[in-house]
């Protein structure tokens, strides 16, 4: 389960984003964007985050996970659409020459600090 490694990275990045002069402070929310194509299961990530964030600067924070849809663009006919299943064939011209515009994100967007 690679969500543990990902949770540890999130904790490290989020903790490093707290301005030093504010510490210690309660981080309430860590907002992340997870593409639907990334191999991350939100429940696993939440669980790992909860376990791994104990005794860190972000203990008690909630992960707020925004799921990003998979959007593809056909390189043959330029058609762009949102995928609802794992079939990467152009729905307009059937070409398989597809580029992913979104859906593989795994980004930290912001942290929300109690004031």
């Amino acid at each position, binding site marked *: *389960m*690679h969500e*543990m*490694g*990902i949770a*540890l*990275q*999130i904790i*490290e*990045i*989020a903790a490093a*984003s*707290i*301005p030093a002069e504010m510490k210690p402070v309660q981080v309430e929310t860590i907002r*992340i964007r997870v593409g639907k*194509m*990334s*191999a*991350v299961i939100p429940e696993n990530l939440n669980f790992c985050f909860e376990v791994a964030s104990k005794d860190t600067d972000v203990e008690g924070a909630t992960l707020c996970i925004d799921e990003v849809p998979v959007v593809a663009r056909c390189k043959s006919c330029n058609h762009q659409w949102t995928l609802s*299943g*794992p*079939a*990467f*064939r152009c729905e307009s011209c059937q*070409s*398989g*020459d*597809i580029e*992913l515009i979104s859906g*593989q994100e*795994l*980004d*930290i*967007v*912001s*942290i*929300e*600090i109690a*004031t």
Partner: protein
Amino acid sequence: MEIQVVKKVLDANLTVANQNRDRFSRHCVFAINVMSSPGSGKTTLLEKTLTRLAPEFRAGVVVGDVSTTHDAERLARSGAPVVQVNTDEFGGDCHLAAHVVASAIDRFDLDQLDLLIIENVGNLVCPAEFDIGEDAKVVVLSVTEGEDKPVKYPLMFRVCDVAVLNKIDLLPYLDYDRNAAIDYIHQVHGGMPIFELSAKSEAGFEGWLDWLRNGIRRKIGG
């Protein structure tokens, strides 16, 4: 109060992966990352591959395994240098991260290698997420698995450059629809090259070996 961060979670991994990539380029080593679910016949494939390429190229292997050394022992019989990494201590035991590969390649003399095969941990989910600095990603699938694996694990089939469909010697005995499997792969990754072969009988091996030869020659500039 909200603080903007905007950072990729896997940035740290990507940084190390890029360092690995630079090292492979500097030493002219063609590095491939081979991934599959358990039981796909990946180790047999690599064993035969190493033996067949041994007269032409110098190869090394990094074997990622959760805890055993069985695969490493089998591959070492080919005469190629093998470095085993157990992933237990890396908090996940499901994939090789770039830093694990970095410490493994410290143990090779890269100037003595043309090809580095990185046998990832048997799993179609987690390894797809981690760039390790390889030149090409290979997914191995066998005809004893369901035809629909590609659509169940689309990220893996999206990120890989080529697919190997192994154990075709078993097709006469199985109720396996190879056209459906190939169609699923191409639904997920249009135009992806697929090598249908049997690692056991070595049927269909030439296409796969030629693909490797081309990659190595491009990298070593020969």
